[in-house]
C-alpha cells in the first residue's frame, strides 16, 4: 500500500496548502532549475536547508517524502555510480581502465545525488499540498501562452484533468485486483526478477481492460451530454492572486540571490 501513496494529496491548511497553485507550480519548476545552477557544496547545503524548511512547513510527516524517493532509489544510485566511477580529476585514488575513483568524481556524485533527491522532494511538496484539479488549472494557466501557436490548451487540460481524476480509482482498483489475485495464490515479492514481472500480468491486464472500458464509456457519455472541445469555456474555480503569493515569489527572488552569492564562495 505504501507505494501507492506516492504523490497523493494530503489535505491541510499550511501556508503551502493555501498558496495559489500557479505560484506553487512556477516556484517548483524554478527551484528545480536553480538546482542546476548550483556549483558548490555550500549551494547544495543551502538548498537542502531550504527544502527541508519547506517540507517542514507542509506539516506532513517526513516519511511521505522519503516514500517518494524510494521507488526511484535504484535509478538514482545508478546515475550516481556512473558519475563517481567515470569522472576524473582532483586526487585519483584508484584507476582500472576507464573506471576510476577520484575526489572530483566523489564530489560530482554527491551533487548528482543531491539534485535527484531535492528534485523529488520539492516536486513531492507540490503534489502533496496541491489538489490534482488545482494542479491542472495551474498547468493550464502556465501553458496559455502556447495558444498563440494555435495549440488547443483546453483539450490538453481536459485530458490531464481526466487522467488525474481517475488515478484514485485506478489505485483502488489495483488494490482490489491485487487482493483477488493474492487470494488465488499469487505471492508478491518472491522469486527472481523475471518471475516477479510475470506476476504483474494478472494485475495489469484486468486494469487495462477496465480502463479501456471506462474511457470508452466516458467518451460516449460526454458525447451524449453534448460536450464540444472547440467551444470557449468559462471556469468554475477562479484562481486568485493573493498577498501570500507575492511573499512566496519574493522569497524565490531572495533564494536566487543567495544561490548567486553562495556560488562565488
Amino acid at each position: 500500500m505504501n507505494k501507492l501513496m506516492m504523490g497523493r494529496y494530503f489535505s491541510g491548511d499550511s501556508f503551502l496548502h493555501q498558496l495559489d497553485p500557479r505560484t506553487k507550480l512556477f516556484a517548483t519548476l524554478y527551484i528545480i532549475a536553480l538546482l542546476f545552477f548550483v556549483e558548490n557544496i555550500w549551494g547544495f547545503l543551502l538548498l537542502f536547508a531550504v527544502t527541508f524548511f519547506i517540507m517542514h512547513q507542509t506539516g506532513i510527516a517526513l516519511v511521505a517524502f522519503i516514500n517518494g524517493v524510494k521507488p526511484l532509489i535504484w535509478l538514482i544510485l545508478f546515475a550516481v555510480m556512473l558519475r563517481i566511477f567515470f569522472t576524473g580529476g582532483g586526487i585519483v585514488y584508484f584507476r582500472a581502465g576507464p573506471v576510476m575513483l577520484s575526489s572530483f568524481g566523489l564530489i560530482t556524485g554527491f551533487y548528482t545525488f543531491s539534485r535527484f533527491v531535492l528534485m523529488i522532494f520539492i516536486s513531492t511538496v507540490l503534489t502533496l499540498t496541491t489538489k490534482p484539479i488545482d494542479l491542472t488549472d495551474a498547468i493550464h494557466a502556465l501553458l496559455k501562452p502556447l495558444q498563440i501557436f494555435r495549440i488547443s490548451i483546453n483539450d490538453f487540460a481536459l485530458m490531464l484533468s481526466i487522467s488525474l481524476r481517475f488515478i484514485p480509482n485506478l489505485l483502488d482498483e489495483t488494490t482490489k485486483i491485487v487482493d483477488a489475485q493474492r487470494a488465488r495464490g499469487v505471492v508478491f515479492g518472491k522469486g527472481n526478477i523475471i518471475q516477479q514481472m510475470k506476476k504483474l500480468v494478472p494485475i495489469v491486464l484486468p486494469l487495462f481492460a477496465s480502463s479501456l472500458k471506462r474511457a470508452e464509456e466516458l467518451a460516449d457519455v460526454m458525447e451524449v451530454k453534448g460536450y464540444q472541445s472547440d467551444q470557449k469555456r468559462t471556469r468554475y474555480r477562479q484562481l486568485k492572486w493573493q498577498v501570500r503569493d507575492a511573499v512566496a515569489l519574493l522569497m524565490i527572488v531572495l533564494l536566487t540571490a543567495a544561490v548567486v552569492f553562495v556560488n562565488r564562495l
Partner: protein
Amino acid sequence: MQIVFNQVKADYQLGPIRTANIINEVNLLIADQSFTAVIGPTGAGKSSLLKMINGLLLPSAGSIQVGEYSITPSCKKQTLAAIRKRVGMVFQFPEHQLFAETVEQDIGFGPTNFGFSREETRLAVIESMGKVGLDPALLQRSPFSLSGGQQRRVAIAGIIATKPDVLVLDEPGAGLDPEGKREILTMIQELHDNHKLTTVLVTHDMDDVVAYADNVVVMANGQVMCQQKVEELFADKEALVKWKIDLPEPLRIQRCIEEQCGRAFSSASLTLEALADLLLKEYFA
C-alpha cells in the same frame, strides 16, 4: 473448517496514517459446514471481515482461527499461503480479476499457484467448469469475449478449482439479473451441500439469507451486533427494528396483512408457503 474470531481488531493502514478500526473487537464462531450470511449497512465492514478470513487483511490485535491455522498480527507467509489454499474467496464482481488468454488458463491460475500438477490442474478446470454450469466448449475462448454472467461463472470456477474447504463470497449475485443471480446462488448452495463446505456469504438481500443460509451475522460500524439462526433473527421484531434490517418478502406481506387486521400473528413466515399456512391457521383460529 471451523472459523473463530477472537477479539479481533483491524484497520487499513495507509502509509503513515492509521485509520480508525474498521473491524473492532469482533468475536465470532462460524461452525464447520455451516452456511452463514453476513448482513449490515454499507460500510459496516462486511467485506473487510471476509478479507480477514483469507489473511488479506491482517488483524492489528486478536487472532483468527481457521481450522488448524491461526492468523495473528505477525503471521508467517507460509501460514497465509496454506490458509489461502483452503479458503476460496469470491470477491464482489469477481469477473474483474480475469486476465488470461483462455478460460482454461484463467481457471487453472489458482490451482497452478497452489502447486497442482499439470494433469491435476487440467482435471480441476474441467471439473469446476461442470460445477458452475459452463459449457466445456468455452474452454479455449477468451474470458473477455463472454457475457457478464458467464464471466462470473468462470471467475467462480477459478476459485473452486483449488478445492477449498471454506468458501467466502462477497455479494456474488450483485449486478446480475434475478434469474442469473438465483442460478449462481443455487449453484453455490449445491457446492456447499455436496462438498461439505463451510460457506460465508455477504449479501444485501434478505430473501437470499432466508433461502440459502442457516446462520446470520449482523454487522454495524465494524462490530458484530448479533449472530443467530436465521429464523430466530426474523422472529425478533425488536432486533429487526434496532438494526434496521429489511424484511424478506413473505414477512413484509405478513406485516402488511397484520396491520390491516389490527393484530399480530403467532409466528413469522419466511417463505410464501409458510405464509399461506399461517394465514389459513389464523383465519380459522
